[in-house]
């Protein structure tokens, strides 16, 4: 679970470094998706960590405590449900992993804008963030392929 908190800290530090320039991709969400996929059969402890990480982010950056934690809890629940519903032989699907993570990132990034109806003016920043997220996700998908192969062997 340490990976989740490290990714939260990394995102926070990057957001401080890039403040006023760009929105940093949601690295915490990527860790949550990774952990939900790997632990899809027993995701219960993940919910509490997702809640805590989301709440901390909200208190530091969004100013609406509970908004990010709600989207994180939903992401963990749906990801774990989808992966546990797949037959074990089909879980090691990097294409599904990539598109699932991308969709989750788009939805959770747009969610605050819809929720507050104040972030729509940030559309260009959001587009840049999505572009950087895709680059990160390609790397994460490569790691996922490696992880699946090592576990298969």
């Amino acid at each position, binding site marked *: 679970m340490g990976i989740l908190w490290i990714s939260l800290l990394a995102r926070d530090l990057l957001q401080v470094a890039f403040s006023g320039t760009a929105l940093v991709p949601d690295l915490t969400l990527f860790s949550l998706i990774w952990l939900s996929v790997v632990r899809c059969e027993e995701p219960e402890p993940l919910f509490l960590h997702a809640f805590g990480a989301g709440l901390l982010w909200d208190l530091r950056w969004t*100013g609406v*405590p509970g908004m990010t934690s709600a989207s994180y809890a939903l992401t963990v629940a749906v990801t774990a449900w989808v992966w546990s519903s797949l037959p074990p032989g089909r879980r090691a699907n990097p294409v599904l992993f990539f598109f699932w993570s991308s969709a989750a990132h788009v939805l959770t990034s747009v969610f605050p804008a819809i929720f507050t109806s104040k972030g729509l003016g940030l559309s260009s920043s959001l587009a840049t963030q999505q572009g950087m997220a895709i680059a990160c996700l390609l790397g994460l998908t490569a790691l996922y392929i490696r992880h699946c192969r090592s576990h298969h062997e």
Partner: protein
Amino acid sequence: MGRTRTKRWIVFLGTLSLSLFLAAVSPGSLPAEKAMDLVERVMAVPEWPSRMVRDLVVKAVDLVAGERSLRERIDRLEQENLALRGLLQTTVNYGLGTGAGEGHVTLRPPTSWWSEIRIDKGSREGIRPGMAVVQDGALVGKISRVESNFSWAELVTSSSLYIPVVVDETRDLGVLNGDGNGLVLLLYIPVEKDLKPGMSVSTALVSELLPPGIPIGRIAGAGEEIGGYRLYRITLKADLSRLYKVKVMTGGRS
């Protein structure tokens, strides 16, 4: 298997409902603000290297582009300009003071988007309540609360901030007030005064911390008439939709 699934549902629904409850109840509440301030204070320690790197990069870019000396010159001229404008309007001596401290906006709560921002400069940098906050020389608000390493500024669009202003072309005095939704109005101008769109508005004598003569914006058009006075809509000079960096005018007399 069934018990595990039930436990999973309970934990999921518990965290989700608690999150939604917090999102519905906490924005704008005092405990939430205290919690946000606490997190800001705690996170300032691990974020210090990031802040240092960012400032170093900005300084390096400034140096490379040769803008640093120009910016300092502009700051100095802005200060001189303000002091001279102040002398024209009042006998209070604002002086040049210590200058303007630049700060980054670290939080702009969506629920009070047009009301307040938090910046990463506090009493340690000489910030005091009432000081003017400007963006590219135009007023964006006033410092409302100060902690040691950060402070909150109330924006000109806030419905609870009233700023005495002067119409530069006619020298008519009025009061600027926001509606809390992004609009800014000029109040208390008698109906017989025919102010034209495009006339500029700047701060009048308010306090010894908020100097007169800081540009605010231009008259966009006349509004409704209330009790012999006409409201005027103001277009702000500052771009509040792109509020990333601001300057706090620390040049006032305490």
